[in-house]
Structure formats: structure tokens, C-alpha cells
């Protein structure tokens, strides 16, 4: 599922592989990523159940979400990236600019009259 890991395995000769370094990924985030990959690789659940599981999985604090986005990008896992980006988008939807700024701790706030 992770293209980065796949490429690493393919490029390094197998007898030399002891470990693959994932320097940008913290251990607790890596745990979550592994959980995601395991769930999606096992063919046990139906599509609908898997979607429900995904919703539950993504229902975490936004700090974790941002870390997941970075990790999924680094490890090149497209479906996880889509899921987490979608979740962040859902968090932005329906909020006023002030609420968005507060939620994501955005300091550089200026008022814009241009685009309505």
C-alpha cells in the first residue's frame, strides 16, 4: 500500500535489508498507519463496513490528522491521504472564517473584502 516502502524494498537487495528508515514519521502515527493498512489489506470486511471503519478511524484530534497527512504523503499511501484530507475538509466546512482561524490556530488573519 505504501509506495515509498515498496520502492525501498525493490531497490535494496533483499539480503541487505534489516530496516527501512522512515525519518519523518513518529511512532504513534506509524502505529495508526499500520492499523489502517492492515485493515484495508484484509478482505474480511464489506465495503460499507470499511467505510464506517474509515470514518471512525479519521475521527481523531486535528493534530493527529495533520500528522497523518504528512505521514501518508511521505509514505505515499494515496487512499489514506484522500481519507484524511477529506476529513480535514469536512472540519472546515460550515465554519465562519473566525472559527476556522481559531480551530487551526491561524495567527495571520487579515480581512479580505475581495471575494465576498
Amino acid at each position, binding site marked *: 500500500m505504501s509506495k515509498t516502502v515498496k520502492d525501498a524494498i525493490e531497490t535494496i537487495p533483499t539480503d541487505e535489508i534489516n530496516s527501512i528508515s522512515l525519518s519523518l514519521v513518529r511512532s504513534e502515527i506509524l502505529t495508526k498507519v499500520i492499523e489502517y493498512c492492515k485493515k484495508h489489506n484484509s478482505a474480511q470486511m464489506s465495503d460499507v463496513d470499511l467505510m464506517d471503519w474509515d470514518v471512525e478511524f479519521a475521527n481523531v484530534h*486535528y*493534530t493527529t490528522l495533520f500528522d497523518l497527512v*504528512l505521514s501518508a504523503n511521505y509514505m505515499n499511501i494515496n487512499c489514506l491521504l484522500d481519507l484524511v484530507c477529506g476529513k480535514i475538509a469536512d472540519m*472546515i*466546512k460550515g465554519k465562519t472564517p473566525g472559527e476556522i482561524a481559531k480551530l*487551526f*490556530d491561524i495567527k495571520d488573519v487579515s480581512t479580505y473584502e*475581495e471575494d465576498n
Partner: protein
Amino acid sequence: MRTRRGFCYPQTQPLSNMCSEFTNTHKRQKIMLSEKPTGEEDSDFFDSLPDDLVLSVLTKLISTATSPSDFISVLITCKRLNGLSLNSSVLSKASNKTLSVKAKNWSDSAQRFLKRCADAGNIEACYTLGMIRFYCLQNRGSGASLMAKAAMKSHAPSLYSLAVIQFNGSGGTKNDKDLRAGVALCARAAFLGHIDGLRELGHCLQDGYGVKQNVIEGRRFLVQANARELAAVLSNGNTKQPLLTWSINPFPNQPPLLRVTTGSGCPLLSDFGCNIPVQEAHPANQFMSEWFSIRGGFPGQGMRLCSNTGCGRPETRKHEFRRCSVCGAVNYCSRACQALDWKFRHKAECAPVERWLDEEGEHVPGENDGGVNVDEVVVLDR
């Protein structure tokens, strides 16, 4: 001035340290908003993401937003998000709902937003802005060229709208009508599966209007339009409770009837015993209906709107649209609108007053018209 400890927020105190951070942020943002923004040493969560990831998030947002405000509020949150949101890769993915500006909220900035999306290559934005400019803002050239841009990318509603413009000679005189061009555009829309295009093409073939008459082919297209409409409703209805159920007919000799379970549907295919609701109109049509209803229901001196309320098209010159030949009280921009409105509404209220000729001297085709009972399987005598 609020203190860092949040003394003026007594309710947050029991929640201890975590909350004081939020009140800090809140307090600092308040200061920020009232003064000029200064260089900020702390970074926010979005700063931790590189641009391309923020673009992914924004693309997801714009394609799943349910109204323009969902996306616009991001535009005015901060400079970085503003810059990234206006990236063409994000704007080109804007969904229909994101672009569905309400007519009462129309402004220059709304127009600029649509224009930006259109320039980014968003076909729906091209079509929507084209329709608004052509019909509401009366800017015929720009509107038509925007619609043409969308049509060249095989956007079925644009092709159909351009066909209607050709059939009616909208924006010009009655000599500007080009029936063959209209039929060609209609055919392209029909082959892309556009329901109104299929209906219009069916009628043109039946009447020999702009194309050689072929009643059987025309009938085929009309039936196909009905079938597609039914299929579309059924596939949309799957997400909620089923709209249609089979009910056991009290008369065992007759086939079971499809009925709507929720509320009243429109008798769109009542001849077949199906009751299905009308499909939701495109945001461009909804905009036009709202626009003209805000302005009193009439686009100009002596000019009327298409009586099919889901369409919303106005006349661009007097007597452009055709009237119902039975009662003469309603007008339609196209046969497709006429057939739809007949089933939906007009059939119940149409009463022969006098036989009218169209004001432009052409007889509105069809003996049993106004009500063109085209959805019946039996071929009418002509």
C-alpha cells in the same frame, strides 16, 4: 484587557491549563483583528503542511462543499489559504453546489469568483456564468462564448442551451433562428444522454422541424428520455428511503402500479402508471428563476418567462416563445419544457379558449398540442 490567566473567563478555570492556551490564542486573535497583522513567531497547523498537501485538502473541500459559503469562508481566513485556494488546480474541481450562487447574493465579487473558476477550466462554472451573463445580465456575446467554451468540452447542458438559443434566435431577431444548427446541437446533447436534449430532438424529428421528418425515430427518442429520467430518479432515490414501491393493484387483471411512498410526486409518467418527482433544476436555472422573481417576474417590457418553472429562461425579444395552442395562456422556450410542464402542471388546467396562432405568424405544431400527449404509447393521428 483580558489577562493571560483568563480571569475574565471564569467558566474555563476548572478546565485548567489546556483552556488557558485557547483563551490566549483567542485573545491574541482579537488583538490581531483590530490591529494590523504583524509577523508571527508561532506557526499554525497549516504551516506544518507543505503547499501541495494544503492544495489536496482545499481540492477535497471545494469538490464536496454543499454551498458557496463553505469554500468562501476559507478564502477570507488568511493570506496563505487565500492564495492557495485561488490556485487553478483547486478551482477547476469546484462542484455544482459550490458554484450555486443565490441570485439575491449576486455581486461583482461573486461574478469574479465564477470567472476565476471558469478561467481555471471548470466547465460547470463556464456554463453557469454563461447562462447568467446571457439571460440575466443581457451580455449576449460573452454569455454565448462562455457556453460555447463549455460545449466544446462536451458539456451536455451547454449544448442544449445553445440549441435553444439557435431555435429561438435568442439575442437577435427572428431571422437569426437557425433550426439546423439547433438540431445539430440538440443531437450532440442527446447523444451525451441529456434528457431535455433527447426530448427536444424527439419532437423535432416528429415534426420535421430543422430535420427530415421521421416519426418513428422521434418516438424512440422520447421514450428514451422518459426511461433515462426514471432511471435517474431511481438511482438518486437509493440513498434515501425508496421513492417507488410496487403496490398490489386491487384489480388483479391489471399490472401492479408504481407509487410514490413519500408525499405527492408529479405525474410525470402517469400514462405508464409511474409517479415520480421532477428532478432538481441545475443551479443556473435556479439562479435565473430567482433572479427574475426578485425583479417582479418579468424580464422586460412585454416579455415573458418560460412557463416551465424549472427552466427559468426569459424571452430576449417580444413574442419569442411559443404559446400553448389550446389555451394560449402559457409560453415555452422549447418543446421539451412544454412536454414537461404539460405533465407536471398544465394538463390539469389547460382549457381551450380559442385556437391561437403564434404571434410571429407560425402555427404552433401539433393538433393535440399544448398538451402534446407524447408520452402515450399510442401514436396520435396527425
